[in-house]
């Protein structure tokens, strides 16, 4: 006998712990099946782009920290690249190496957070999340050594970084990298071969490749469908052209593939950091104040620079009118654009998979709303 059901609309969020910030979804269910989703965002809007219009180019670095707060180093890097392009600043080599190391560490931390919370959403209450947070803690300790802060780093400055790494950073980094590799091995042993994870994530929320490309999705979500698109390889910024690394691709384009690509990328990042350590050269970490003054006045014009952030292409577009503050700053936030496929992923799926799918996008509301 078929059970007679009636569609019902449920409000999920904005204060829901699984929404990675404050995000609201108006979901219509028919029994267990999702028939309609309406995402509502903007609860974390702080007007960073507007605030940037009345701050100097160095001061804006502190605003970028707070956009995607689980990968502030990468936000710093994308912003600084845009400023350097706009003002024609030649960065100091050692500063560039240092910011690449910091950026890759941040990518590992961000992927660990994404994996931990994905498993948390799956119902693995605590264990994987606590393990990945423990490893992330080591990375945050390294950041504290570098710049004195753990989350809101503000480490980068136009032309490099503000201060060289202290002596005790390098041995700690070596130890930390070994730990990270060991913990990724552990993570893979207890998750990548776990039958429960398989049955819950394989084949759910499959997205066709053309749809992903047409919606300009970037990052691990795109690579999980087999598209070889990584800006570090396609349009190398900083010194990524001197680094050789493998791009990890998966073809299934389901929740498991997205998880798998992140874990493998974290492993590749360790390789990249090792190569950076081999190639880093002594020297100043930022140009002298004669070359790059504190108060930068770029010539009028505009510049766009993008990096491969932890969530996809993260770009900053700056327009200058020749003053000390940008005329306009726009952020191409990967989280927001990756969120646009939410309806395609969820509709037709099961209620139990809703937050798993949502978590597999790996978005950060701080970056979506800015």
């Amino acid at each position, binding site marked *: 006998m078929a059970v007679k059901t009636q569609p019902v609309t449920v409000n999920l969020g904005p204060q829901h712990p699984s929404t990675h910030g404050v995000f609201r979804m108006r979901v219509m269910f028919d029994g267990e099946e999702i028939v309609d989703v309406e995402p509502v965002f903007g609860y974390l809007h702080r007007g960073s782009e507007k605030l940037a219009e009345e701050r100097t180019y160095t001061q804006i670095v*502190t*605003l970028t920290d707070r956009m995607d707060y689980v990968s502030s180093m990468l936000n710093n890097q994308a912003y600084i690249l845009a400023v350097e392009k706009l003002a024609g600043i030649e960065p100091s080599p050692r500063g560039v190496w240092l910011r690449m190391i910091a950026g890759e560490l941040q990518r590992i931390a961000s992927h660990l957070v994404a994996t931990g919370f994905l498993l948390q959403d799956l119902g693995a209450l605590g264990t994987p999340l606590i393990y990945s947070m*423990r490893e992330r803690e080591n990375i945050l300790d390294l950041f504290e050594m570098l710049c*004195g*802060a753990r989350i809101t780093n503000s480490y980068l400055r136009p032309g490099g970084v*503000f201060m060289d790494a202290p002596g005790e950073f390098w041995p700690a980094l070596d130890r930390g990298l070994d730990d990270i590799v060991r913990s990724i091995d552990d993570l893979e042993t*207890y998750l990548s071969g776990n039958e429960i994870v398989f049955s819950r994530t394989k084949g759910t929320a499959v997205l066709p490749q053309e749809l992903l490309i047409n919606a300009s999705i970037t990052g691990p979500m795109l690579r999980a469908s087999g598209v070889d698109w990584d800006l570090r390889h396609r349009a190398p910024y900083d010194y990524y052209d001197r680094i050789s690394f493998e791009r990890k691709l998966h073809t299934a384009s389901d929740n498991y593939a997205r998880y798998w690509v992140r874990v493998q990328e974290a492993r590749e990042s360790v390789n990249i950091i090792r190569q950076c350590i081999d190639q880093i050269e002594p020297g100043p970490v930022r140009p002298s104040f004669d070359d790059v003054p*504190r108060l930068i006045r770029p010539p009028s014009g505009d510049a766009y620079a993008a990096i491969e952030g932890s969530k996809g292409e993260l770009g900053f577009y700056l327009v200058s009118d020749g003053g000390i503050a940008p005329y306009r700053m726009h952020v191409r936030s990967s989280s927001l654009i990756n969120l646009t496929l939410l309806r395609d992923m969820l509709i037709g799926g099961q209620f139990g998979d809703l937050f798993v799918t949502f978590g597999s996008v790996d978005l950060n509301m701080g970056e979506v709303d800015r």
Partner: protein
Amino acid sequence: MIGLGLPRGFLITLKNFVRPPVTEQYPDRHVGLLGAAKEAGMNPVHFLFKRPGDSIKAIAGLATVPVAVTQSSRFRGNEFTFYEDRCTACASCAKYCPLGIIEIASVPGQIDAQEGESYKLEVFDIDIGRCMFCGLCVEACPYDALHMGTDFERSKYVRDELVITKEELFAAPKRPSAFYRPQFEEKRFDPFQETIDDYHNAGRHERPSDEELKRKWVDER
């Protein structure tokens, strides 16, 4: 469907179960008999006989010792360290702050024959309740008068008490952070153990001798 994945996963969980915890208890750490004896600087047997009351408390898990939080010496904490004698009231810090939360007012002071005109600081308030500890003010200070602090406990019931005034800055313990101050790192200064009370020692140069000063400011003029 059923394979080795789950048992292997549980082995990892078991391995982590016997690992020592990485979490820190805060603000106090509960210790057993051994920890309490170590804190008192005695061996456990000695401790048991000398201080039976404390021993029973320790065995019951009631003894606490303070936590030594390990922080980097570059830690950007609150309670800015400020050396009045180094400050020229130039207000670079106030101009560089992205939030504009430093308030400075100064009056012309006396004119010194050797060092020229100096300004007297009237107001130097930092509204630390809005501060984001970015350190840009410290980076901007040309005379190494303002340093980040290394403290992190400053909870107050009233917001107004979060404004650090000049007097409070003078009175605060001088434990400057090594953030943007490579001279402290070169000297291997540890802000969690020592203080720098003499303002001469906080600068980025060695303290000049009196002869050097005389040569520079009197003889060469």
